């Protein structure tokens, strides 16, 4: 039975390279594992906020790669609803389609994973 792997994104998109390299890791693992779940929690929700202008701060614009989740069959993409609300971000402002979860639902989903990687 394939292991359920959860990848948790908690960092803002460009202060460190964690977000971009976690995305590389997610896309690569999806080739080997079809039970990936991806979580965006806390400042991690900023990774999904539309209209990054990464090149103006000498960073790579990785948002187009987020749109490859569909192509890579990464379907379980979850966003913490309270993290969005705290930052006054609406679902319409997100660059990809995701499922909103309450804190309790996030906890439940995290508990269901066999392995977690957190960035």
């Amino acid at each position: 039975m394939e292991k359920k792997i959860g990848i948790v994104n908690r960092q803002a998109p460009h202060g460190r390279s964690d977000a971009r390299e976690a995305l590389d890791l997610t896309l690569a693992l999806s080739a080997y594992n079809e039970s990936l779940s991806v979580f965006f929690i806390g400042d991690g929700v900023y990774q999904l906020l539309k209209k990054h202008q990464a090149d103006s701060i000498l960073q790579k614009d990785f948002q187009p790669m987020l749109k490859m989740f569909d192509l890579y069959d990464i379907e379980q993409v979850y966003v913490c609803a309270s993290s969005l609300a705290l930052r006054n971000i609406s679902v319409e402002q997100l660059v990809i389609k995701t499922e909103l979860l309450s804190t309790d639902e996030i906890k439940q989903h995290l508990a269901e994973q066999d392995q977690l990687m957190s960035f």
Partner: protein
Amino acid sequence: MSDSQVIKFSLLVTGNPASDQSASTALQFCEAALAAGHHISGVFFYLDGVLTASHLISPASDEVNLPDRWAALAIQHHFPLEVCVSASLRRGIVNEIEAKHLDLQHYNLKTPFVLSGLGQLAELSARCDRLIQF
């Protein structure tokens, strides 16, 4: 310890060896797990963790040399030290083959660390009982 009690661990090390304590904790975890009779399937270095694979790391004599410690432990207990190639190249960790390929004058990957792809992480994740991230 009977075989049924032996846990197969894989480690994912993302901490910078010079500035994050997690890099040292990972080594200590490995040593403790092995001492308790458990098995290490392998260690995968990612993000700033790949810097651990440089043989140019030269701490002061009263500080711990993490690359030396990892290399000795891995050789003694026969587990692989896998280093993500793309994370490595952007941080200046290069082996002989990549140096030739990229026309670089030097390389610095320490033995027995090996450059490998994220597929190796998938492999380590699949064949362990527990994946622990540092």
